[in-house]
């Protein structure tokens, strides 16, 4: 292709910074879209994490593996049982919600009054058990969930969005709206948020913290399962797929303020946008460095996170 033809094919330029470095509105818009769709996944993971973190006081390291299980459930529901992909969202939410309850009752509940270190070790052990079990059950081979619209793309104003990414955005919006309504409009929801933010305070107010904690675990794991189902058609499904998103989701919880769902949502989108923009404008090799640098910077400015209580 001749160079003048190439120039004609370039997206419209907004500001010419230098001869070599140009700023394109369309390119920037595309990075925003990429960041928002990725942020939705982090948001689902971080919301569940922050609920558990607020109640248990320790991070559930196995959360990424629950997300991985959600992806496998979607794969088997659709590819093996020939059932609807949409149904797999409900199935994964139920299975992982129940699994969350079992994990809480069998592992974390008996340890609730013991040293915090026990909970840490239990969470790490759970991470390893779930990953090894996935290797044993599902095998080490990559699995692809291919849906009829897997490669379909929506184009608008020079930008593009894969259909699955649009589904992720819309589904996350619905789930988060539902969660917000549940927390703000129901007594149980208010008790849940109160326990996540201050366990002792909630107990003093007469909230049955044990039941609320079990519910928080079920909701948190169900959210991870939904995130796994949503991402399944867009990634390689592997037993180790949960670790990367988990790290960013943890950072989002810290940025947003521990125990705050709203903070987790905002933190997730901030970090996803940092990741997307630095990948595009600087280098994908170092994008996670910028994500963690942003988290540290945020903590230096506001040690309790954006929506956390002042220390």
């Amino acid at each position, binding site marked *: *292709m001749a160079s003048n033809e*190439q120039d004609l*094919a*370039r*997206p419209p330029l907004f500001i010419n910074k230098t001869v070599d470095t140009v700023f*394109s509105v*369309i*390119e920037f818009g*595309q*990075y925003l879209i*990429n*960041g928002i*769709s*990725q942020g939705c996944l982090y948001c689902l993971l971080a919301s569940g994490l922050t609920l558990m973190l607020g109640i248990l006081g320790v991070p559930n390291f196995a959360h990424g593996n629950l997300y991985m299980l959600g992806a496998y459930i979607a794969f088997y529901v659709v590819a093996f049982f020939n059932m609807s992909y949409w149904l797999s969202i409900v199935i994964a939410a139920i299975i992982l919600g129940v699994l969350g309850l079992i994990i809480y009752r069998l592992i974390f509940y008996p340890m609730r009054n013991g040293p915090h270190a026990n909970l840490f070790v239990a969470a790490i052990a759970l991470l390893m058990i779930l990953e090894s079990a996935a*290797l044993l059950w599902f*095998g*080490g*081979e*990559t699995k*692809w969930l*291919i849906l009829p619209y*897997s*490669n379909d*793309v929506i*184009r608008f104003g*020079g*930008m*593009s*969005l*894969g259909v699955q*990414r649009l589904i992720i955005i819309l589904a996350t919006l619905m789930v988060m709206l539902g969660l917000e309504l549940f927390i703000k409009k129901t007594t149980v929801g208010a008790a849940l948020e109160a326990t996540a933010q201050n366990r002792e305070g909630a107990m003093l107010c007469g909230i049955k913290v044990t039941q609320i904690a079990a519910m928080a675990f079920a909701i948190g794991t169900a959210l991870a399962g939904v995130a796994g189902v949503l991402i399944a058609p*867009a*990634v*390689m499904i*592997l*037993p*180790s*797929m949960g*670790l*990367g*998103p988990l790290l960013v989701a943890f950072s989002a919880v810290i940025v947003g303020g521990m125990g705050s769902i709203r903070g987790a949502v905002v933190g997730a989108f901030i970090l996803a946008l940092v*990741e*997307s*923009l630095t*990948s*595009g*404008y600087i*280098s*994908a*090799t170092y*994008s996670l460095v910028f994500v963690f640098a942003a988290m540290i910077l945020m903590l230096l400015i506001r040690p309790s996170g954006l929506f956390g209580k002042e220390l």
Partner: protein
Amino acid sequence: MVKKNIYILVLTTIILAILVACSQPAQPEKKAEIKTIKWGVVCVQSGPIAFMGLGILRAVRLATSNINKAGTTGEGAGLKVGDQVYEIEVVSYDDGFDPAKSVAGYRQLVEMNGVKVIQGPMGCPCALAAMKINQELGVITAPLCASSNTRKMGDKLYVQERMPVQYYALPLAQAAWDRGYRTICIVSDIADSWSGMSKEFKSQFEKLGGQVTALEIVDMSKTTDYHSIMTNFKSKNPDIIFIVMYDEPIALAVSHAFEVGYTGKFMFPSEMGPKTEQKIGLDKLAGSLVQSHEWTLYRKYPEMDKKGAITNLLKQWKETYNETPPQTAVPAFDTCYMLARAMEIAGTVTDPYAIRAACPQALQEGKLPLLMGSTDMLDNGLPYGAFENLCEIQDGKYNIIVDKLTVPRSILE
């Protein structure tokens, strides 16, 4: 008359004696007892890339089973060293893609099983770790590592299973230039082999006058989101995007490129498996270039396989394992035959130096049912002669556009 009778009697006696002698039952030939030699395989058999390691192990099992049944050159069962016939028994160790475990596996197979040949490990970190100890243990190492660093180790007991990919950077750069491509964006895995190839490609392509407008190095085992990389590439409007990775991560990167609206061409340095082809859809890759071995083509178009060796392997693999072999299987299968034949030529199953020295002859004789078609084994351990093709995808099919991506022997030596 008496004289005549005596003459007849003597003649009859002689004839009878001859007949008796001839009719004597032959002394049973002392048939040599078939002995067993152990053949080592160290590779990853668990974890996310287990399918590639299992490809090596299963290929060696299949090749040794064939040798046990029909010999290395099809001239009778077993591995023949002088009058002695050996049956090969495979012993393996799962290194989990961990260099420390590769070393442990080498020690275990040598010290407990007495192997003189180990195929694997897979991956350069594991291969380099194993090569630190194989000479000390007195065992031939045949790793699968796509880096050229292994050949620089000076290991006298080393044979590489497949020519390292980075040597293809030169012919690929030339082929891209010849196709009229002048600007290229590259995304490469961080592994020594792939990043080495992408840097070499960049250097060669720029020497030809081309321009690499973006080069991103990522860890493909951890990267799950290529959207922003592809957005950046799309904004640079390249003639082609070169994705320097394995099979399945290629599918992920390409699908994300489509999602951000890239509609141009790609170039891949690796064969695509059935799952990748299904995920991307070959019809969406019109004009894209794929570096591939004949194996890729024959898998899809068996009628092209005039020699039939690859079709036979695919059939045998399907019957035995009920699947399609991964790309690691083919070089492992060939290496197993080469080393077994080298034992026959060297006349020993215990002297690793003599066996290694006989490897070039094992390939040069051209008697083995090889799949890759290597014709020589260089002193530094690199196989030579099995060149790959460059295909262009058109109408959902692969078409060969460069029959052999020729890598000069002088570069390899």
